[in-house]
């Protein structure tokens, strides 16, 4: 799968979190992302590394995935990033 698709998957994961008031549990996120467990784990790791999401442990709700400010910026700039990548064949 090409990198452009990768950007799209990243966008989709972030969008799911954003639409869930900015935080979501791991299981529903995995389900809504339409990815295999292995690929989801890879993307989660990449999003964490890029500081687009954050993982926190809450006493009441358990493990939660949060979208960061940077993640919100990514969503805002997604269209421009994709256009730029396409324009320069990056």
């Amino acid at each position, binding site marked *: 799968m*090409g*990198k452009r698709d990768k*950007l799209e998957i990243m966008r989709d994961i972030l969008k799911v979190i954003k639409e869930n008031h900015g935080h979501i549990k791991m299981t529903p996120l995995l389900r809504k992302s339409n990815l295999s467990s292995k690929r989801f784990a890879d993307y989660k790791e990449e999003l964490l*590394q*890029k500081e687009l999401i954050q993982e926190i442990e809450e006493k009441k709700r358990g493990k939660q995935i949060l979208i960061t400010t*940077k993640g919100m*910026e*990514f969503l*805002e*700039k997604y*269209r*421009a*990033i994709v*256009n*730029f*990548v396409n*324009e*320069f*064949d*990056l």
Partner: protein
Amino acid sequence: MVVVENVLFPNTFGMELIYSFVIIVCSLLVYFSTKKMYEVSKYPGIRYFRMSFLFFAITYFFKSFISFLFLVFDIHEIIEFSALFFGVLTLFFFMYASTMAIFYLLYSVVWKNFKEKKFTIPLIHILVLIISAWSILVNEVRILLGFQVFIFLFIAVYNYLSLKKSKGTKKPGQLHAIYLFLFLFWMLNLADLLISGFDPILEILISMASIGLFLIILYKVVKNVGSS
């Protein structure tokens, strides 16, 4: 006095300064205007593209500095130039930066097809540093020119093969033509500076064409970055 006159009045050096200045500004604008986009996405292709223009800015800075030293020390041949200590140093950084600029620009298009390891890019830097030093040590700038042509041909053939492999789903676009011309004019620039000085009119034409290409790229960048 000669220096002041040459800077103030239109001649090869004056033209060189203006030309380099425009390209440095274009390159830095490309580099800084894509900063946010890269910070947010951390997309490798954007990083390579940005690095290319950062190296282009450094290259043109050293290129104009070499011309300045030619003027100050009344040097006419690159061999005389390499006898000076900071001449050698400037030439070395110029060769290194220019090769890296070409490499990053071309690599930004094909990186997706490479299985890049963590050490690939540092290794390229080391290789380019060695070749630049070797070129200077043996006093043969054609080694560097040959190496840049090799990088270009290798990536061009690689890109052509991957386009062919995609069975027509991807086609070479306007961008490939821009990069091809950018490389050709860059080679002419290098040959003019390192091998033999061209006719001033030809130099101006090469400079104008290069500026035109950088402006086209800047326009394309600004158009996309602006939309964000």
